[in-house]
């Protein structure tokens, strides 16, 4: 019960981390050039159901997202279609420039197997303790729901809080007194 309460309490403070993404360093391996990563990440594009991020040579995708400041990651939303949406998603915190060859070299910070609910927009809560000090996030989409050649992702959204900003707010409140 208390765990559920604290979970909802955290929910209230979390923000969409879209503003803190360092777009100059964002990379996506094995994306199709006609369906690139911004289709799933950027504001406006990700809401459009016709615009998807699609994989190219095979069904795996490796997405690298650096942030402009240190953040805490609370949950992620991955939306996609029923068959071609992603299934197994592995998250790596603070691992730079990973390649498909070294995804299995170290254990992921968290793994999520997406259900149909998740694909419709239900957030996946991650192991918060593992994502307390995140400078960059690597999302490895290992396979998709139906096992087809191409994985299609409609939207990726990250929710959490920033480390510095929280401190700033705290300072402000003290000053008000």
């Amino acid at each position, binding site marked *: 019960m208390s765990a559920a309460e604290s979970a909802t309490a955290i929910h209230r403070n979390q923000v969409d981390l879209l503003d803190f993404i360092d777009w100059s360093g964002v990379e996506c391996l094995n994306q199709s050039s006609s369906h690139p990563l911004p289709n799933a990440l950027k504001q406006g594009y990700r809401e459009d159901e016709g615009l998807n991020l699609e994989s190219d*040579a095979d069904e795996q995708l490796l997405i690298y997202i650096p942030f402009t400041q240190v953040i805490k990651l609370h949950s992620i939303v991955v939306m996609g279609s029923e068959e071609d949406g992603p299934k197994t998603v592995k998250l790596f915190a603070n691992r730079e420039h990973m390649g498909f060859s070294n995804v299995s070299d170290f254990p992921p910070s968290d793994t999520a197997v997406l259900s149909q609910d998740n694909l419709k927009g239900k957030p996946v809560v991650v192991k918060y303790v593992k994502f307390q000090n995140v400078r960059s996030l690597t999302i490895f989409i290992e396979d998709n729901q139906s096992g087809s050649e191409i994985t299609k992702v409609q939207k990726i959204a990250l929710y959490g809080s920033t480390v510095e900003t929280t401190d700033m707010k705290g300072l402000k409140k003290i000053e008000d007194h």
Partner: protein
Amino acid sequence: MVLEATMICIDNSEWMRNGDYGPSRFQAQADAVNLICGAKTQSNPENTVGVLTMAGKGVRVLVTPTSDLGKILACMHGLEIGGEMNLAAGIQVAQLALKHRQNKKQQQRIIVFAGSPVKHEKKTLEMIGKKLKKNSVTLDIVNFGEDDEGKTEKLEALLAAVNNNDTSHIVHIPAGPNALSDILLSTPIFTGDGEGGSGFAASAAAAAAGGISGFEFGVDPNLDPELALALRVSMEEERARQEAAAKKAAEESSKQEKGGEEQDATMTERASEGASEADNKKNEFLALAMSMDEPASSQDLQDTEMSDAAAEDPELALALQLSVQDSAKDSSSQADMSKLLADQSFVSSILASLPGVDPNDPSVKEVLASMQSQSEPQQKQDEDKAPKEEDKK
């Protein structure tokens, strides 16, 4: 100006001993590699290039991606030819070398020289291609040398698997009179992915397209000044030697005075002829001149072509001045020589004295026969125009 890390895979298998690409396939390949390294490092100073060999005892990385051109050129020396090319392993090692590049912002590119038969299956190559595409590595394939059945097909399949939006290319180079590196200059491997390429590639391509006419010896003095200087010095020495030999022979024959007058006439006639031709149909006439075995006219043509090019390049103007002085001497001696060469016995005696030339060689005989037939109508032409020139004077 794309920031790139490139790995060049060299084929140093036994098939590279063949001489169908002069001087040997391996040498032609080495020249092309040098050219590519220069182009890449010039287009962006942060570019890095690495080299590995695919044959021999096994795939061996000679130099990891570096921007130090000297290191790259140095490692090309003392390479041994032998063994069989292992294309799959070569590409995979290249991919690994690129993965560990220091600057992760660089785009990854592999350039493969495939000169010997490809022993891998098409499927294997396609899988490798897919893997490269997945890791966003672009691939350029230079298909030359051996052309057994299936090789072209396999390489095309590999390219299709790797290609992502036309960033990867394949070039097929047949054996022929043109150097491997010259043909490469005009391909997308040098000119980049439709960006127009670097200034170096563009100017070098233009020069190559003009039929080596832009530069004195087919070598850009800007690119490789030491080589250009060495070539020029050796050419001058050879001319001096030929000139001395010709002068000696001229003294013996009675044609000396007559040849002297006609020399000036033929020189000016050819120069004006060359200039007008060059203005109108540069490439066509040069090709014609090349095919003609007349050294003097082609020399003058090259000079006039050079003067056009030199107008654009002050450095070349200096080189041109030097060469004009030399060729002035040279033309006179060569015009003289052309008449002497008409004399069969004189020719055979000269040829016998030259080391490495067998007068009984059928190709040598062919050349002599053509020169004989050419020198006769030209002499008539000269004599017709000589009085005209003298009237003008």
